């Protein structure tokens, strides 16, 4: 049942945002309805499909399983924060070039998951890619082109050094 709203202040895609939300309001609903960032999609609202994946402090999370109040003071990145103007991020480019989507509904979640995965693992082995995608459901593509897109995105990101060189590589 309804309870008192709380102030929420957070950084979204590098911009300070605030709003009021009941403690029960999910981060996904807060992003979509309160902040108007509708690129984050809801496919199951029980943490299986991954369509609502966003980054909180650079970690991929399911925004349907997190409350908005938990994101208070945190840094959130959504699908809207990836491209610079009309310049797509290499992950987005790769999905486009590989025909890695059909209806497009699951796509923002996949792109965010892949983005987070490649930050951690810029040069994934073939057998690491599919497990990394297994937290996201796509009903259209049969996944093959998404797997191809991950491979291509990794290549593009290595070429453009869009990924910071991991600390382990420097040592």
């Amino acid at each position, binding site marked *: *049942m*309804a309870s008192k709203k709380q102030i929420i202040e957070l950084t979204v895609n590098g911009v300070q945002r605030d709003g009021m939300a*009941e403690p*029960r*309001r999910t981060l996904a609903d807060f992003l*979509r*309805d309160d902040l*108007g*960032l*509708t*690129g*984050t*999609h*809801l*496919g*199951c*609202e*029980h943490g*299986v*499909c991954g*369509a609502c994946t966003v980054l909180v402090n650079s970690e991929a999370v399911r925004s349907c399983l997190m409350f908005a109040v938990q994101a208070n003071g945190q840094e959130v990145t*959504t*699908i*809207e924060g*990836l*491209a610079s103007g009309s310049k*797509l991020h290499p992950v*987005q480019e790769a*999905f*486009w*070039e590989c*025909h890695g*989507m*059909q*209806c*497009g*509904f*699951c*796509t*923002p979640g996949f*792109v965010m998951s892949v983005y987070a995965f490649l930050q951690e693992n810029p040069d994934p082995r073939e057998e690491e*890619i*599919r*497990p990394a*995608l*297994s*937290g*996201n*459901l*796509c*009903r*259209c*593509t*049969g*996944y*093959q*082109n*998404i*797997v191809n897109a991950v491979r291509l995105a990794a290549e593009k990101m290595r070429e453009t050094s869009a990924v910071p060189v991991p600390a382990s590589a420097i040592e």
Partner: protein
Amino acid sequence: MAVSGSVIGNYVGASVKRVEDPRFLTGQGRYVDDLKFPNMAHAAFLRSPYPHARITVDASEARALPGVIAVFTAADLVGVVNPIQIDASLPGSKPLPHTALASDKVRFVGDPIAMVVADNRYIAEDAIDLIQVDYDPLPPVPGMDVALDPASEPLYEKAGGNISYHDAFTCGDLDAAFAAADRVLTETFRQHRYINVPMETRGGVATYDTFTGELTYYAATQAHNAMRFFLGAQLNLPGHQIRVIAPDIGGAFGLKFGIYREDMVVAAAAMQTGRPVKWIEDRRENLTAGGHAREDTLTLEAAVKNDGTILGLKVKMILDAGAYQVTPLNPALFTTIVRTVLPGPYRFLNYAFDATVVTTNKAPYVAYRGPWAVETWVREGLADIIARELGLDPVEVRRKNIITQEEQPYKNALGLTMERISARETLERAVELADIPRFREEQKRLRAQGRVVGFGLATFIEPAPGGAEYMAAMGGGKEPAIVKIDPTGHVTAYTTQVPHGQSHETTLAQIVASELGAPFEHVKVVHGDTQMGPFSLFGTGGSRAATMASGAALFATREVKKQVLQIAGAMLEASPDDLQIVNSIVSVRGVPQKAIPLAQIALLVYLAPAHLPPGSPTELIGTYAYDGGEGGWSQATHCCWVEIDPSSGKVDITRYLAVEDCGTMINPAVVEGQVRGGIAQGIGGVLYEHAIYDENGQFLTSTFMDYLVPTAMEIPPIEIDHLETPAISPVNFRGVGEGGAICAPPAIINAISDALGVKITEQPLPPTRILELMGAIPADS
């Protein structure tokens, strides 16, 4: 060349990157749940937890909750939403009238009883909990066996039992066929309930102008014109007072053909409250009540010669339609499609088909990607069983029975003329690529090591959209398109397709640009608004787009091109026949200096018509409604290799190959995406997905933890090989959207059957069932 006498070819056949994608990739797609209107309210449904019960409803407490705008029950909708009555004119079918919200009784777990409209969804769901319903349970009808019992509790009292349709068909001389047979084989195939599971659930936003009386419904639909037509009828709104807009659609796979009871209540609520009302189905509702598919049982009796020739076939089909018929399709129609398509490319001239549809306390039966798919499974399963029983090679059984090019045109059992059917060629190509003898040796070697491996294949044809006779039999209609050139010389193509993954914004633009001679970037495809573009009831589905929508766009482009060339001919003092358009510049062939840009012609037409020769067109617009001509059939042979872990029963698909023929590919990447996506759904359906009811009609798989949609871990890489048999008609594009999902189940099941050395006539095949079939654990009957 795709089209005779045409310059098409610049973009057609190329894997042009989709114009849809940048918006999807950046979160700028606009799906119904992304739409927001001033003062918008949110709806939630109260649904029955009982499969079958009489009910009384008291919503007074919910109505009093702060933030609640209105609560609708069946009583509140009398005179607002008409009772629902699906067309029962199909001979043998009974009317099953019902109301948009359950009135006196509920008929399945998930049956909508009430809808709350509130300031936000959270309050709406709070209010749902405050509605008091007394349930007086009735004996459940949880499946077809109970439904067929005349003593079962009728879901619809006036229907006199739970059989809602029966029909029998026969052709040829079955007595002679069975008398001449060496063997008669009888098998019963049981297919379970699948769920479509588009990643975007159902939903809509209704807005109502209380002064003009106009309703606008933004709907996740694959047939916006049908939605307008039938929703208007339910709400007593004339056509001009209802507009349906389909924004971006997050998948459908047949689910979003329906005009659902929920759509009617949401639209009525906007009219009653005067506020925009949004309803977005949650996943639990979607799995429980959105609609299920494919629960069919078919018994086949085949008269067979010892060489594998099938002389005659008798089929009995029972379809479990669930509790309600979804507007506008009578589920009996699915049995007629199964009957028509089942012979496929085979010579089944002596053929009988007996169909029964039953009503049960389950979610409604809806279309799902190749709604007739069971026909391919049972035919291809039977072919393998015949091979097993007679000690023949499964490929040889197919060679004995599948029509060849030399026999075509071939009049089949249903009276359909089969022409340019290349199923046989796909089979031979697949056999060549599969190198079966080598696999058999490998299999022998691996079996000696205790490994369980198998190979299976399946061949089929699909009406995509089917020949002219097929389309006439199915009431096909025409597919219209409008192509306009605007004053800047750019092009807008209007289609009645409602793309939701099929890429029509790209593929139709490829066709229009190529045919006109314009850059691809100059063409925009507009869809999904009943106030714009032409009318067709169908929308996207039934694999109509590749032939019919593409053909319509092609011919409409020719119309407008003719207008352009007429004007250009007069201006350049040349015969229109000597003109060409390249890169949107009209020129005289061989005289490049005699040229005029398309943009200049367009500007003159719209802004300075007085400067044009007398008799010039006053606007540049081409319209065409294409009936599909001879249309055509797509065909394929799928091969599947499996390895089964004997300790866990897990099935691993080690290789998968599809050899398909859909004619000329407009966009190969799109074709392959459709094929792979369909196969993934076939794999999911056979190995993982199962909508389960218990023996009391309680629904058990209402989350993604219970209803298992395959991930990237379960779907293997899929090899595709293309044949491109020319069509008879000038438009040589055929659909491939449904075939993957149709042909994959028999290929997989035949492979598992081969691996285990047992006959399999059932789906699904989860690990426990595999272990039972292996005899590793006792069968749970």
